[in-house]
């Protein structure tokens, strides 16, 4: 039996986290859970303790990627076989984890992404996000020749070589999205998608709200992709190329 770890980065999710944990325990109870508290200012940590969920408590706020990477290091140190990246805000559904796991086992892939766009779901797609996803998809197809419909989905299952690689990566990107997918594809990892359903956020706000933040995000991702492509075009691909965005 494979050992699976579900990594849940959490930042101010005291309202959402009890639902997320009970969802996982009810629908994918065989996996272990590690929550990574990114210096929440609310009662998130007390909720985790009350729910008896193992957690990592970061000494300062590092953002989503910093918290996620802490969970991946934990997984690498404990020799897990697979890691599932799961959001702490209730958007991801635990019953969909099985789909990711089945596909990664069946196809011997390295990463399976839970895609919102592979089939039509009732997930609400703001125009900007949808357009962003389309552009990133196109970039991935142009650079790697692979079709990834939902490159911004954080709902993924990673094989051990992948999360070991991520956990040791210097400059693990601030936004691990299309840039990281392109990098891993260029390195020869197999990435596939499986259609999943997602929910709307129940409480709190997303990290991509407003106009300036998404614009900065797009610029950083484009820049990151540019650096990755340059690294692979002009360098030894075994060397760790990347950017600090």
């Amino acid at each position, binding site marked *: 039996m494979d050992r699976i770890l579900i990594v849940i980065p959490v930042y101010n999710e005291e309202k959402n986290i009890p639902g997320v944990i009970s969802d996982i325990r009810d629908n994918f109870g065989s996996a272990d859970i*590690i929550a*990574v508290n990114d210096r929440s200012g609310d009662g998130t940590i007390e909720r985790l303790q009350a729910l008896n969920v*193992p*957690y*990592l*408590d*970061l*000494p*300062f706020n*590092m953002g989503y990627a*910093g918290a996620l*990477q*802490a969970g991946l*290091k*934990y997984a690498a*140190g404990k020799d897990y076989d697979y890691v599932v990246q799961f959001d702490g805000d209730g958007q991801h559904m635990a019953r969909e984890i099985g789909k990711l796991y089945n596909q990664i086992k069946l196809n011997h892939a390295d990463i399976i992404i839970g895609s919102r766009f592979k089939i039509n779901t009732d997930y609400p797609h703001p125009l900007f996000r949808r357009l962003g996803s389309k552009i990133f998809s196109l970039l991935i197809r142009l650079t790697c020749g692979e079709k990834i419909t939902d490159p911004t989905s954080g709902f993924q299952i990673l094989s051990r070589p992948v999360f070991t690689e991520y956990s040791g990566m*210097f*400059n693990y990107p601030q936004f691990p999205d299309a840039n990281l997918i392109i990098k891993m594809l260029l390195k020869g990892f197999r990435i596939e998608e499986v259609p999943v359903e997602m929910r709307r956020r129940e409480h709190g706000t997303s990290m991509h709200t407003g106009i300036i933040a998404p614009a900065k995000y797009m610029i950083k991702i484009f820049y990151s992709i540019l650096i990755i492509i340059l690294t692979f075009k002009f360098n030894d691909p075994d060397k760790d190329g990347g950017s*600090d965005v």
Partner: protein
Amino acid sequence: MEVPMYRVFFAFFGIAAIIYILVKVKKNKFSEGRSIFWVLGGAAIFLLSIFPKLIDKMSALLGINHPPSLLFLLATIFIIYTVFKLEEDITRTREQMKDLAHRNAILENMLREKRK
């Protein structure tokens, strides 16, 4: 020939800067590797105040009409290089700090699990 006051001032300034940096290194308040660059900067100020014609000669060599602008150019390059080096250091330090924080969080978790 009378030496202008400002040249005396800058010659002393260059020497004072070098002494200040070396004292800092001696007290372990400034890294040895980093200090070379700054000592060279102090030495450049000292040399130019003693031999101001150096700048004129270099300007002529490079085809710069207005010699003082070469001085500003060199100073700007010095500053930009220093800022870049600092950014490089900050990047590395930030990554190292992140890794330490991760390890710390994982160790804390192990301690908690042991206590249970």
